[in-house]
């Protein structure tokens, strides 16, 4: 619930940005804005914080303290945190958040816990390298399926979304790699970690 509240707050805050999308389309220099945003260390730190909060929710949601977060749950939390960090400014982030909301609605409607989202895993499964016919149009169609919510976009709109999505994914990989490294080093030296950080 707090994560959805923050998502709504971010949605409200981004109305000004949504209005200026036409200006972004006309001005070439503004096109650099969304993609270069993901390169800043501040964006990566903000994402790491959101990811940590999401992971805490994933662990808390299971109820049993011994039950660990599964890899698909961690991945879904990572993509959700990425979409929240994008603040609904892009189509792919709104598509990810909409998917999470639909899944949450299903959870509420269904009494027994649903099975793990394996359809998500199937969607991200590594495909054979396709050589579609039709050159540019065929490749654009394949590309549109890889980016959430962009299947029906025209080519210019798709390219703008893809640039932002690729930059966001790169930041996500950097942040998750850093977090994995920090967790591995902190678990190998638990005494040092507990000494350095005072418990909240």
């Amino acid at each position, binding site marked *: 619930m707090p994560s959805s509240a923050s998502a709504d707050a971010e949605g409200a805050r981004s109305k000004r940005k949504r*209005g200026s*999308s*036409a200006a972004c389309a006309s001005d*070439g220099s503004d*096109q*650099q804005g969304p*993609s270069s945003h993901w390169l800043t260390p501040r964006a990566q*730190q903000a994402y790491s914080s959101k990811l*940590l909060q999401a*992971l*805490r929710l994933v*662990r808390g949601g299971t109820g049993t303290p011994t039950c*660990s*977060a*599964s*890899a698909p*749950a*961690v*991945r879904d939390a*990572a*993509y959700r945190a990425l979409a929240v960090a994008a603040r609904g400014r892009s*189509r792919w982030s*709104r598509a990810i958040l909409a998917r999470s909301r639909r899944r949450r609605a299903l959870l509420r409607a269904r009494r027994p816990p649903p099975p793990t989202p394996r359809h998500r895993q199937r969607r*991200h499964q*590594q495909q054979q390298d*396709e050589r579609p016919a039709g050159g*540019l149009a065929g*490749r654009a169609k394949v*590309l549109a399926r*890889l*980016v959430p919510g962009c299947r029906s*976009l*025209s*080519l*210019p*709109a798709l*390219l703008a979304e*893809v*640039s932002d*999505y*690729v*930059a966001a*994914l*790169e930041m*996500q*990989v950097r942040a*998750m790699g*850093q*977090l*994995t490294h*920090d*967790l591995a*080093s*902190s*678990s190998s030296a*638990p005494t040092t*970690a507990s000494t*350095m*950080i005072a*418990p909240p």
Partner: protein
Amino acid sequence: MSNRRSRSRQSGSSRITEEQISDLVSKLQDLLPEARLQSNARVPSARVLQETCNYIRNLHQEVDDLSERLSELLATSDMSSAQAAVIRSLLM
């Protein structure tokens, strides 16, 4: 969302559209790691889109691998260690 749809539906001249596509493909090419090494090379648009598809698939795979790694680490360590790790990374 409606803004984006109306913008894409606008019937500007094909010259502007082609120029826009060429500009966007060029920006997309700068994001690809392979194209960064040869930034001056002129790559056809279809090739850039193909490389982008492959790159996105690679990034998705990396996220899957890191998610599995994170899941294992979270199973062996408590959340306070994770908080300490993030605090340490923020201080860096």
